[in-house]
């Protein structure tokens, strides 16, 4: 493993290695000294061209817990707002000796391009509507932690699949790990290529819920809703929102996930979000450990 750009690039063994490593590293977060010396003297650059609080903080905490030096670079107020191209930014980072570059970019494929320009490892922290592999890894980690397995798990991913990099990464990773994914969305919010994805598709949430072990609710991305994908927020919420009545249809061990940030009352009701069977808060903590594992495995040793 040199880069982490797509969840689909991971073999089953590589994905399990990341999850197993994360499981060991989770103990570090429980100690009074939450730090390991492993990446001393290495530099991790957080290159964020898009607003993000939780992912950037999560990567920053992960790198710092491994003793790496962290440089945060956000597009706002930087040379990018003066018109610098991605390539020139990349060359600047290269000159600074970045061992790993964590990139979030509004354009799908930007991390892939970056990987050709820098010598260090590239970690995709979300590119456009394409992928967000560390989110998929932390989701898989959270599922395995709660339910004890991934093989044969029935996972429903509900909501705006069309704009969701989380959904795509999850589908690819969960298929590799042997879980059965069903995407649930109105037809307008499904990408055209969805029939080629390794998963099932349904338009009817109520039919899917009783069989699901995991329900992952996606955020309705209001900022991308200018093209009227559904008649009204109320109608969306009625047909695809997870409220108390729908929650009651789940079997007793099923869990509810959400990558955050949530629109309470829209795709998920406050009552469901705060229930003990929701993993939303622990997903955040797991994010740090999974990202520690990814950073360690990518730049902890000598690449080639």
């Amino acid at each position, binding site marked *: 493993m040199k880069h982490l750009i797509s969840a689909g690039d991971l073999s089953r063994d590589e994905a399990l290695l990341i999850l*197993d490593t994360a499981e060991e590293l989770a103990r570090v977060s429980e100690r009074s000294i939450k730090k390991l*010396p492993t990446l001393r003297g290495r530099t991790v650059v957080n290159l964020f061209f898009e607003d993000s609080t939780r992912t950037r903080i999560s990567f920053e905490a992960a790198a710092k817990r491994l003793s790496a030096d962290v440089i945060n670079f956000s597009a706002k107020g930087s040379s990018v707002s003066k018109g610098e191209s991605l390539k020139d930014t990349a060359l600047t980072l290269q000159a600074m000796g970045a061992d790993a570059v964590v990139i979030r970019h509004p354009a799908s494929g930007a991390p892939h391009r970056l990987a050709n320009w820098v010598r260090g490892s590239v970690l995709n922290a979300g590119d456009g509507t394409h992928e967000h592999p560390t989110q998929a890894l932390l989701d898989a980690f959270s599922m395995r932690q709660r339910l004890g397995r991934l093989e044969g798990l029935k996972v429903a991913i509900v909501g705006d699949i069309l704009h969701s990099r989380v959904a795509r990464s999850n589908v690819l990773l969960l298929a590799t790990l042997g879980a059965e994914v069903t995407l649930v969305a109105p037809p307008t919010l499904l990408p055209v290529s969805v029939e080629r994805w390794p998963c099932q598709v349904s338009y009817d949430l109520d039919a899917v819920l009783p069989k699901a072990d995991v329900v992952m609710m996606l955020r309705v991305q209001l900022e991308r809703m200018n093209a009227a994908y559904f008649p009204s927020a109320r109608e969306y919420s009625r047909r695809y929102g997870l409220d108390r009545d729908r929650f009651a249809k789940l079997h007793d061990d099923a869990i509810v996930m959400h990558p955050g940030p949530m629109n309470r009352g829209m795709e998920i009701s406050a009552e469901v979000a705060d229930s003990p069977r929701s993993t939303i808060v622990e997903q955040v903590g797991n994010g740090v450990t999974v990202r520690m594992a990814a950073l*360690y495995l990518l*730049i902890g040793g000598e690449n080639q």
Partner: protein
Amino acid sequence: MTHAQNQVARAVLEGPDIHRALTRIAHEILERTRGASDVVLLGIPTRGATLAHRLAERVAQFEGVKVPVGSIDITMYRDDLRLGPARPLGHTDVPAGGIDGKTVVLVDDVLFSGRTVRAALDALNDIGRPKTVQLATLVDRGHRELPIRADYVGKNLPTAKSEKVKVLLSEIDGRDAVELLKGAAR
């Protein structure tokens, strides 16, 4: 297939020898720590952790003291991480009582350069502050590169630096033995 499998492995210790060596070490731990009341046994994965459990069993058997036993992975503290691809992590399991103020006995299968023990001391430092730290090893094969010595040794084994020492334990390998592999060019 690999070079190592074509080499002649000479058994240096057999099952009963290992059994006797561990029995003696358990007695020595009890003697030197005056009954092992504050002792925590921490094995270095993989085989050190197995040995730590065996020692704990013997201590319990001889004097009825239940010694907390766990494991401490040192991978993240190694000084040679940059010399190869990232290694998978071993299991760290610190007993519930912690190690603060305790006598920690580190347990490893083979003591060689001393670098693993150095890493283990660093790892301990991040977990707590033991009163004393001691070291038990099944085989001491010499060639130290750091000022480190063992407090309890199963067998001192003179070796050439190019040789390899392999410890087999029934819990992991199906049988107990210590083998010396001649001239494994590394």
